[in-house]
């Protein structure tokens, strides 16, 4: 057992401070005031402190801590809810992840020291999580923490807890429902707004907690209704339902929610928890589809009919006496949904929810292109008025082109002086595209196998597999879903390991290459260079941490139990990985990123990510920030900035791609590995930005690091533009690099890992 099983708030503070010294918190306040207590509102601008004594930096860090706690609570409570329900439904079960997996729960072992053998072994893990969340939330109360750095340490702690909560949640559902256990050949299923068969009765499931959806699939299967009813999902419930049954279909990610509901295809809407529109009841009423709420965290003011008979509830919903009900028993909810949908489908057949041609024309003609309201209400600033104007003249292309960059929030409609249903107007204009939106996605495969790590661990650490690119998170993209596809494709083609979860996994599946293949059809599903993997839903993110931890455990034979700081230090210095949350929106995304950062993996976010208020940025020119120990003798070594940042935003995918490649450098790369990484970094910069990056030379430790194909050119640039002492004839670098390549270099940030003189 390592030194920190079940760490409390302060137990990993030393590690956090090491990260925070190098990757200093950078704040961009989204709000310059504080309104948390009745002393306020307090104006924190110009160096002023609030009435409680808290300054701007600490307030921003406090806010981020609270956001991370929201996210971490969502995943942990999800795990708690799942465990409670499955213990009741399927009973306690042995955790057997199959022959390819011995390290069944890497985060649980790392953080708590517990090696779970059966589902109920997660109970003390959840108790630990819940206590820590309560302690952390307490620290955000007025009159508690006063240091921004300590709030950052607490945000890291919340992020780490988030990763653990996710692992519990996903392992519980994998074991309880026999979801894929790291299957490289996980089956393909359909995805997209166009993949739902509207001629059938359609149950739409939305959210993240799969238990009620499993009950739907079971009830349908038990009653021979698989072919009569479509189950279509939005968000992670969709991913997880297809992990359980490939008869389900995925409509898409969060951004499609309002548009798909408005399309009226769903005959029943069933929601569980997280990422559901708060006005889902109003939207369901609008299309005359009954709503079933199945989780006590989202009840929408509906009557709780959990204890009523299924027959009674079916009657109430089918008659329309109530627009929806709460059913907190997932099995009953599944039965009711299936029985009701068969009735409502028949009743709703005559309903037309998409605008008619006449209505569409009337609305676009009504628009005065005033630009006064919709464009400033739109989070993307989309030119709605101009598009309406073109549509009024008969050209619907500009309006249809708004469909994908639109995040589907509906803020535009609320401010339109003419009361134009703008979401419906865009939907109507883009109907041909919507109908043809049919992709393919591999169902979430779950964990990376230990056997895959045995094969891939060495090339990852040596750098010859240039990195793991993990595309995770929400759908608040700056310019539509295709950016995620582009990023994944670029890195898969370059033989990086590309893993995806959640909205990103779904959105990347919507596009096909010239041969008609989606990424999941084109690239292999095993964890190796050049793969594209759907790991699963948001909670499956834990397996990406898990893969990095397993590299330390299996390849480097490090003890992982209760040994967080050492393993994070190992990952930071050796595992070239970069998270990408291109459409980060939620508080969960904030806690996910903080958890990934604490374990030593940098994250690139899209431009909306600036609104999280805080980044972690390095300054490559400050020597003291880049000093590490050589564990062999304790000497201090100035390393290149690898990785340079922990959390950084890019504005466009063209900017993000070279940045992601840059963040895969690690100080322990071999020369061969560094060559590969440098090749991609420079190629990608030239491809997307038109120039070589201005900092490539600082990653060169000697001539052996230079890509062979352009060695002479690069040596000349080093000599002529950077003033290095280079023997061009002998192709040798005589002086210039910040350090020389040392094959035995054992980089660490932790004093306790320095080997004492023996």
């Amino acid at each position: 057992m390592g030194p920190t099983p079940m760490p409390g708030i302060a137990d990993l503070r030393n590690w956090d401070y090491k990260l925070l010294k190098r990757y200093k918190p950078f704040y961009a306040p989204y709000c310059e005031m504080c309104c948390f207590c009745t002393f306020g509102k307090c104006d924190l601008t110009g160096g002023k402190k609030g009435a409680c004594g808290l300054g701007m930096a600490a307030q921003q860090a406090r806010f981020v801590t609270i956001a991370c706690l929201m996210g971490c609570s969502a995943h942990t409570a999800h795990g708690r809810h799942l465990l409670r329900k499955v213990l009741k439904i399927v009973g306690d079960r042995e955790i057997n992840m199959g022959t390819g997996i011995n390290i069944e729960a890497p985060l649980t072992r790392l953080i708590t020291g517990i090696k779970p053998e059966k589902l109920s072994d997660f109970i003390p893990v959840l108790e630990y999580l819940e206590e820590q969340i309560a302690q952390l939330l307490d620290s955000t109360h007025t009159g508690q923490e006063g240091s921004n750095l300590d709030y950052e340490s607490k945000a890291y702690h919340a992020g780490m807890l988030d990763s653990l909560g996710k692992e519990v949640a996903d392992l519980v559902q994998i074991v309880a429902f026999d979801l894929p256990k790291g299957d490289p050949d996980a089956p393909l299923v359909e995805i997209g707004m166009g993949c739902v068969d509207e001629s059938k009765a359609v149950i739409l499931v939305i959210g993240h907690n799969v238990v009620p959806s499993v009950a739907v699939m079971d009830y349908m299967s038990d009653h021979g209704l698989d072919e009569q009813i479509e189950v279509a999902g939005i968000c992670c419930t969709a991913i997880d339902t297809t992990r359980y049954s490939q008869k389900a279909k995925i409509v898409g990610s969060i951004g499609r929610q309002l548009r798909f509901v408005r399309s009226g295809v769903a005959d029943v809407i069933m929601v569980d928890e997280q990422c559901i529109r708060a006005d889902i009841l109003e939207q369901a009423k609008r299309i005359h589809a009954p709503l079933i709420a199945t989780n006590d965290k989202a009840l929408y003011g509906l009557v709780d009919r959990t204890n009523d008979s299924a027959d009674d509830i079916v009657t109430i919903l089918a008659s329309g006496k109530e627009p929806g009900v709460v059913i907190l028993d997932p099995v009953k909810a599944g039965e009711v949904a299936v029985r009701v949908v068969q009735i409502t489908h028949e009743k709703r057949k005559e309903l037309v929810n998409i605008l008619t041609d006449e209505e569409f024309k009337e609305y676009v003609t009504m628009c005065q292109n005033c630009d006064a309201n919709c464009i400033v209400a739109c989070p993307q600033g989309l030119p709605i008025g101009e598009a309406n104007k073109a549509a009024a003249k008969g050209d619907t292309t500009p309006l249809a082109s708004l469909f994908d960059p639109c995040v589907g929030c509906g803020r535009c409609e609320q401010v339109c002086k003419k009361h134009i249903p703008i979401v419906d107007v865009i939907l109507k204009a883009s109907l041909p595209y919507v109908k043809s939106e049919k992709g393919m996605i591999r169902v979430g495969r779950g964990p990376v196998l230990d056997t895959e790590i045995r094969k891939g661990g060495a090339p990852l650490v040596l750098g010859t597999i240039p990195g793991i690119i993990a595309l995770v998170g929400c759908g608040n993209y700056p310019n539509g879903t295709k950016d995620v596809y582009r990023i994944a494709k670029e890195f898969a083609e370059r033989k990086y390991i590309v893993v995806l979860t959640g909205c990103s996994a779904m959105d990347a599946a919507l596009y096909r290459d010239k041969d008609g293949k989606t990424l999941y059809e084109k690239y292999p599903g095993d964890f190796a260079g050049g793969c594209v993997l759907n790991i699963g839903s948001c909670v499956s993110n834990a397996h990406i941490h898990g893969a990095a931890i397993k590299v330390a455990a299996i390849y480097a034979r490090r003890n992982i139990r209760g040994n967080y700081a050492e393993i994070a230090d190992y990952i930071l210095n050796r595992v070239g990985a970069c998270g990408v949350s291109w459409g980060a929106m939620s508080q969960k995304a904030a806690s996910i990123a903080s958890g990934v950062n604490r374990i030593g993996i940098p994250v690139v976010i899209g431009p909306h990510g600036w609104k999280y208020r805080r980044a972690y940025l390095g300054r490559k020119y400050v020597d003291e920030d880049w000093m590490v120990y050589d564990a062999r003798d304790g000497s201090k070594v100035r390393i290149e900035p690898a990785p340079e940042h922990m959390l950084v935003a890019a504005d466009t995918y063209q900017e993000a791609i070279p940045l992601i490649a840059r963040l895969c450098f690690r100080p322990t790369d071999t020369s061969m590995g560094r060559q590969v990484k440098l090749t991609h970094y420079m190629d990608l910069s030239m491809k997307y930005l038109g120039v070589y990056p201005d900092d490539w030379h600082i990653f060169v430790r000697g001539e052996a690091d230079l890509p062979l194909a352009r060695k002479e050119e690069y040596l000349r640039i080093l000599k002529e533009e950077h003033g290095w002492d280079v023997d061009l004839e002998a192709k040798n670098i005589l002086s210039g690099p910040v350090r020389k390549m040392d094959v035995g270099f054992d980089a660490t940030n932790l004093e306790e890992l320095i080997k004492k003189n023996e």
Partner: protein
Amino acid sequence: MEIPFDIGNISGPENARIARPEALGRAIKNAKRPLLVVGSEILDDCLIEKAIAIGKKGIPIAATAHSMKGFVDRGYTENVYLTGLHELANNIESGDWMGFDKTGGYDIVAVLGGIYYSTSQFLIALKNFATDPIVRCISIDRYYHPAARMSSGNISRKHTDEFKKMLDRVIENI
């Protein structure tokens, strides 16, 4: 009173003063160490030509997002520097950063052609934390940016010609 381009983007008690293009141009001209920060939107509507015109007046340009490609394609890279917006803000806030030409920091930062919301956050970061020495920010964009010290007003895309004329007046006064 002008509204922010993203209407909910009201961060605090002090918001940018709307300024005429002549005043914005003069602010750049009178600065000791001005910097123009451009983003990907300069690649639309030929705004890059306006950025180049400002560059030719001797104002260094920080090319964020993938705007650098536009300068390369037009053969103008003399005083154009590739950077990320986050990295740039982080450097500007650091009192010991010596600028792109390694001779010193900047006292006026003007923004043009960046994504509205990330630019807004860039400005608010500098407003609150680029204080020693103080760095003043102005917007010469088509958006009203409340987090700047001085800003142009919102100019709709349907009035792009007007926006370009506004930029010409800024440039004339540099």
